């Protein structure tokens, strides 16, 4: 065992170093059986960039080093928007000169020159944060274009879904500030509301959905809400900047994904009721419709009828296409619990779920629901090593994972799909969203022989089966 020498004068408190005999990996393992080394998420900052670059009239100015800038520009141009990105050169020279703010402002000016720009978002990343870029250093406007600072150092925000929240919250703070008054009836209302405006009154009966969803989902949600006498005013993140300005004027916010804690707090402070949970599968769809009706004080009998009808439609879809197999749901998008619920209701066994986001108030209901229905482990802020060990334990028929995990599954001849690319691009909500997702999963389960054939072609025949690993849920 090697010894560790801690350098003199180091501010580090030496941690207790476990002394283990050096061990080769057991057969079939490609990651550590003992350690959790590799957290799974896109660069957290990408979540913010994705939200912001997709808004019409928003230009971004990224304040960061060149490696970070190159990588984030690349993924933004691949996954978010075909939009040119401005930045200052930002290295030792600029840091020594101490002109972080000047550099940020110069790139904001460059970004604001694009015709039609309404807002420039200055994205402050790890090195700019460490150098101390603060909101007070930036102007609120440049040439009539609004400027906001979005602070997303990857060392402090641990997942890219949570960085989406940071971006949306920054927009809400600018365009839907938390000012409210308590009227005589005891109801908090934003200052813009005077109770006499017809348009405002209509808006107060509507809902804004908070959560990045496939474009077909808002359409089916709106259709159901209209039957209740309500409707969908917008979905955030939105491509329309004006939608953010509506956020404190609607009757309720439906936070359909569990990682918008910051935005939810801002809206709650503005006096807007929040509905958590999402309409996935029969039971959750029923509950969600009733919750919306309650929050908006809509006709309860009508809501019950619509909710039952939607639940029956979902059940009909499931009766038509049920699932049979063991699926691991291991993405890093933050909406894994929703997909898992849907798969469980459709008949799949989902013993293990993992995600990049942290455990919170907003994950509690789904977690309890899933654990009551056979899910043995739910891992938050997961690492690749935890996921691969689960692959050993649960021997799934299908893995919906990150790219390294899906690759690991395919290497073992198990069908695998990159969760982000395959599941985030189809509808999910209500009965309309069910069919497409279930069929995708069914097809993948049925393709299993191809995965085994391809594995054998490249890797040769399997060695004789060793004793199955005992299922260990101590992670």
């Amino acid at each position: 065992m090697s010894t560790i020498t801690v350098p003199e004068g180091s501010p580090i408190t030496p941690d207790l170093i476990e002394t283990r005999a050096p061990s080769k990996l057991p057969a079939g393992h490609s990651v550590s059986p003992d350690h959790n080394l590799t957290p799974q998420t896109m660069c957290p900052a990408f979540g913010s960039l994705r939200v912001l670059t997709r808004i019409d009239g928003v230009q971004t100015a990224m304040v960061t080093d060149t490696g970070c800038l190159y990588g984030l520009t690349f993924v933004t141009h691949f996954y978010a928007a075909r939009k040119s990105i401005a930045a200052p050169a930002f290295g030792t020279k600029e840091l020594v000169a101490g002109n972080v703010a000047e550099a940020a402002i110069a790139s904001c000016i460059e970004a604001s020159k694009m015709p039609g720009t309404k807002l420039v978002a200055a994205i402050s990343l790890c090195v700019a944060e460490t150098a101390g870029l603060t909101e007070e250093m930036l102007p609120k406007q440049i040439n009539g274009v609004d400027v906001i600072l979005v602070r997303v150092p990857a060392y402090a925000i641990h997942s890219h879904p949570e960085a989406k929240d940071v971006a949306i919250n920054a927009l809400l703070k600018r365009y839907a500030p938390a000012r409210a008054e308590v009227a005589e009836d005891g109801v908090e209302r934003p200052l813009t509301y005077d109770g006499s405006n017809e348009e405002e009154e209509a808006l107060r009966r509507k809902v804004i959905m908070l959560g990045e969803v496939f474009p077909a989902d808002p359409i089916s949600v709106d259709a159901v809400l209209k039957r209740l006498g309500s409707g969908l005013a917008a979905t955030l993140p939105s491509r329309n900047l004006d939608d953010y300005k509506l956020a404190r004027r609607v009757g309720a916010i439906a936070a359909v994904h569990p990682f918008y804690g910051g935005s939810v707090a801002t809206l709650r402070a503005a006096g807007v009721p929040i509905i958590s949970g999402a309409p996935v599968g029969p039971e959750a769809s029923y509950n969600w419709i009733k919750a919306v009706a309650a929050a908006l004080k809509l006709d309860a009998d009508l809501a019950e009828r619509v909710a039952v009808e939607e639940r029956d439609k979902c059940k009909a879809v499931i009766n038509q296409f049920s699932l049979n197999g063991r699926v691991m749901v291991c993405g890093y998008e933050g909406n894994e619990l929703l997909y898992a619920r849907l798969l469980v209701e459709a008949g799949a066994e989902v013993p293990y779920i993992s995600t990049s986001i942290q455990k919170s108030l907003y994950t509690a209901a789904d977690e309890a629901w899933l654990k009551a229905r056979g899910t043995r482990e739910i891992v938050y802020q997961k690492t690749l090593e935890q996921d691969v060990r689960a692959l050993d334990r649960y021997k799934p028929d299908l893995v919906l994972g990150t790219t390294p995990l899906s690759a690991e599954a395919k290497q073992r001849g198990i069908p695998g799909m990159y969760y982000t690319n395959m599941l985030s691009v189809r509808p999910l909500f209500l009965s309309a969203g069910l069919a497409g997702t279930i069929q995708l999963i069914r097809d993948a389960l049925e393709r299993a022989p191809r995965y085994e054939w391809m594995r054998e072609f490249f890797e040769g025949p399997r060695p004789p089966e060793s004793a199955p690993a005992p299922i260990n849920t101590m992670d």
Partner: protein
Amino acid sequence: MTDSNDLTNRAPTADESRAPIELIRDLESTSGYWAAVWTMCTLPDVHLICDAPIGCFNLVATAVPDYTDAIPHIHNITPSVMREQEVTMLGTAGAVRRTVEALRQLHPDKTLIVVSTAESEMISSDHSDWLSKLDPPVPFFWSQSLEGDEWEGRDRALLWLWNRFGRERAVPLSADDAQMVNIIGPTYGCFNSPSDLHEVKRLIEGAGGKVNLVYPFEATLKDTPRLSRGAVNVVMYREFGEALAKELGRPYLFAPIGIRETTEFIQQLGDLLGARAQADAFIAREKQTTLAPLWDLWRGPQGDWFPTTEFAVVAGRSYTEGLVRLLADELGMKLHFASGRPRRPGEMDNIQIRETLHKKQPAFLFGSLNEKIYLTEAQAKATHFIPAAFPGAVVRRALGTPFMGYSGVVYIVQEIVNRYYDLVFNFLPFDNVAAAGQPKEVANPLTAASRLVWSEAARAQLDRHLEGIPWISRISASRELRAQVEVYAVRHNLREVTPDTVEQALAATAAQR
């Protein structure tokens, strides 16, 4: 609120007399840290620890190489996972140490290397001292990620590997090694390198050489001393790798692009290897085989078309200079502009390239995703974009798409001619069968346009608009622009088309888009 004029037009204050702030658009070259990862992780007996927040790890090891190198992820790299407490209080030594300990158990047969990142350099996390006191010591590579660029970084990483793992165990060249040739260069993140490497190997063998080591792409760390057994070094790219070739002290050549350069490359390599007769015979054979399609296309109708066609290049130094040599100097195509990476003084940066492409587009643009975005912004439908550089999502793992060597000449010319055929196809008139059953919504206004009178000035105005359009598309574009103006004139009951009509009509059409 700050006065906007003050911000954009103010005079610099006293302490701002220092260097002006340099602005970047859509950065095309990455940092020294990425260069180190992409160089060292190609060696399978190395496992890298990057002293990084999770984002720096994810981008370089998974998110980007998924789409540049078509691999699921780089498997032999682990982050120290720097978090807020490491940045603000603890420093990263503890996190690095835990990672080293874990990886020692997991991969006892691998050499661990710790590499710095921009953020670790920002907080001055230099671990070289304590890492060197471990048993066995762990090498630490300061990647200089806050200075320099990808190209300097790649050079530094290659030199460091040689100095640290090769030089001391180098063996003197023996008589057996007289034919041995190293190829220096390909790593992760090198556009199109599998095809180019395949072709360069073919040329080396044709000229009488034997490939000794492809470093680092087809080597292990333990192979590093074997670099000394190359009688000649071939440097794949002008943008990096030459520093290592100089250090090795043997004659070196750059991998060639274009007809003349490829021929000279084979001849020079033949001379260096004492195999000139074999090299000359290879060239003669190549003219009859690999290169024959070029001779045929040159003599055919396709060859007439090259001098009328404009192209532009934004790519790595090797590709930029190589494409200009082949397409402009040898085939006679017109060069709109070229800008290599790393950029030399006088070459356009992305801000200037963007402005240039917004004004005028060539028929062919070799470039990265950035230029493709600028073409999209300019709505340049008549320009063919051909991937020739990263950044950009493109699979280039097949061996049949080289830009280098004789095969590269034929591949590039074939690409251009095929895209030209596409262009012709797209401009041919056709009957829309799917729409044929539907009634026409409006009578064709152009039937009334035959009565319109065009002033001379209006014609000249239309011609000026056409100048921004690639030549090959101009005939159909002139038809289209003229139709737009005439439809506008008819709808506004005009008898005569004036320069103002042209401007208004084209502006109105642009607005409709």
